[in-house]
């Protein structure tokens, strides 16, 4: 029985919410056809259609949709790409915008009724986005400085007394090849995972309190649901912020790969 049905039927819902909530059974009895897959396809379709329609008939004085699309692109280009990467950043602006919009839309699914969970709360999706970023900054680092030059630049920072390299080089190596991709994926995943878990705890917690034996505990369910509503706003903020942070970090890593010797 699904979670919602068991909650509404006032049976004992599974408490506390566990990782199992993140693995709903496949739709229509097909194992590989999951809600998450459909949500990702939906997000991709929405983004492609939105940008195609917004820019189908561009005008000098933009309409409402064109204005929205242009300000999203403009924000990424001016506020993130140019600001962090510098003049060269313009060539990355289309990818960064796509990344921003994709993550923002999939994150916002966490608060849309009926969808109510973000695909990014499964580690596979942030991990895949991170692989793209990882390959991108290694590729551009090697392309800009050559393989040796890039490794020398990033593993042996200049103007350091040589004994320190014994300590610095392993740290820098771990930083670039392990910590950076690992934290990038984990940050997005854990934020969405924890957000969904928090909403579950307060929503189902409200039902648990309402079903409590003690009469004094019942009114506290209202407090629990009030907190749920506040948390939904908080989740919206986190969803957009994490999309911004992911793109910000991607461009910051790109910048450190492209940077001139300093």
């Amino acid at each position, binding site marked *: 029985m699904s979670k919602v049905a068991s909650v509404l039927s006032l049976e004992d819902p599974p408490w506390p919410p566990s990782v199992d909530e993140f693995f709903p059974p496949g739709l229509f009895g097909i194992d590989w056809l999951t809600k998450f897959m459909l949500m990702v396809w939906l997000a991709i379709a929405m983004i492609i259609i939105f940008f195609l329609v917004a820019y189908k008939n561009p005008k000098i004085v933009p309409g409402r949709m064109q204005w929205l699309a242009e300000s999203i692109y403009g924000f990424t280009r001016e506020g*993130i790409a140019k*600001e*962090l990467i510098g003049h060269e950043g313009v060539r990355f602006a289309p990818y960064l915008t796509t990344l921003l919009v994709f993550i923002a839309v999939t994150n916002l699914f966490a608060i849309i009724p009926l969808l109510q969970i973000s695909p990014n709360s499964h580690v596979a999706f942030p991990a895949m986005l991170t692989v793209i970023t990882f390959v991108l900054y290694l590729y551009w680092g090697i392309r800009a400085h050559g393989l040796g030059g890039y490794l020398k630049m990033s593993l042996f920072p200049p103007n350091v007394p040589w004994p320190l390299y014994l300590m610095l080089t392993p740290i820098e190596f771990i930083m670039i090849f392990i910590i950076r991709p690992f934290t990038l994926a*984990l*940050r997005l995943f854990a934020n969405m*995972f*924890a957000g969904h878990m928090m909403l579950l705890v307060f929503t189902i917690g409200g039902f648990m309190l309402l079903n409590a034996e003690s009469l004094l505990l019942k009114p506290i369910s209202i407090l629990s649901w009030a907190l749920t509503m506040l948390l939904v706003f908080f989740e919206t903020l986190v969803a957009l912020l994490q999309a911004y*942070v992911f793109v*910000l*970090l991607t461009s910051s890593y790109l910048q450190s790969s492209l940077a001139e010797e300093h």
Partner: protein
Amino acid sequence: MVVGSVAAIGYGLAAIGPGIGVGLVFAAYIQATARQPETAGLNRPNLFLGMAVIEALALFGIAFGFLWQGHIPQ
């Protein structure tokens, strides 16, 4: 008898450090913009970069709490 996972307590402990860290980052940003409001836009990417780096520590706590708990579904 209390039944539950010690991971919850562990996460509480793990969140102290990043909590202080994020507080310091935002305090510094607010102070900087209060002293020089024109630097608000200049410092904003740095604010979020700093926050993201510190926040990662707290998020390790969430992930490892579940990871080392011992019953993750297949």
